[in-house]
């Protein structure tokens, strides 16, 4: 059952990720990306991390993708129309080859790893909170709020009319 769910979600994630990069209309890309994020959330749940799975849906599929869709609709984005010229096509072929080499090399290394058995562990929200608010990560955690504030101020300053 878990096996079937895992492979179904993995297939859905890969197919919708291919739609993200194959689609000329960015709105459809955004919706396909939401599908990828949600199927990844299922996989996070199957890997025994319910907290990350929930964050994935709430923060990524919820907040970040709504921001993307908001900007897409605000700017009234059209589809990419023209096919790339001769130079563009050569560069695209080079990019495909380079990415294929990267994935091939990393895949070769990963494929030859000794199979790892998953250890049982408790990744509940309570455990995550205990770690995040432990002295080890507390200052980093508080620093992220400063980062978010800086990003907020920066985004407003950058997008202002007379900037």
């Amino acid at each position, binding site marked *: 059952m878990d096996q079937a769910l895992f492979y179904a979600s993995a297939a859905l994630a890969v197919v919708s990720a291919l739609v993200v990069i194959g689609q000329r209309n960015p709105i459809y890309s955004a919706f396909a990306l939401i599908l*990828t994020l949600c199927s990844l959330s299922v996989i996070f749940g199957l890997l025994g991390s319910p907290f990350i799975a929930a964050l994935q849906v709430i923060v990524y599929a919820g907040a970040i993708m709504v921001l993307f869709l908001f900007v897409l609709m605000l700017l009234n984005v059209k589809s990419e129309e023209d096919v790339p010229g001769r130079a563009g096509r050569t560069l695209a072929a080079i990019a495909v080859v380079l990415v294929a080499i990267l994935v091939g090399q990393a895949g070769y290394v990963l494929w030859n790893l000794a199979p790892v058995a998953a250890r049982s562990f408790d990744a509940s929200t309570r455990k995550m909170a205990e770690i995040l608010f432990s002295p080890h990560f507390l200052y980093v955690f508080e620093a992220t709020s400063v980062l978010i504030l800086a990003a907020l101020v920066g985004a407003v300053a950058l997008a202002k009319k007379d900037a």
Partner: protein
Amino acid sequence: MTGEPGFVHQAVLLSLVLFGIGALGVFLRRNVITVLMCIELMLNGANLAFVAFSRAAGTLDGQVLVFFVMVVAAAEAAVGLAIVIALHRHKDTLDVDAFNVMKG
């Protein structure tokens, strides 16, 4: 639960594939916003690898790292999209090839 396969291997390979697709999209797409979405795809591939290795190691450190990656991704998306809006205001297009002012 100890000793069950737990999809670690498959999850790492899936993360690799997602990262590759995202990298390909960064090279192939011409729309700035789609390029940003492909970067999110790559970040998610990395997140999946973190969660899978955290599962294999039996510690929560990988998950904490995923949490911070998500925070930084949110900040990056906010600032990146603000820059996109500013660029659109200047050039009235979102084609990455149009933004070559700094080209030497």
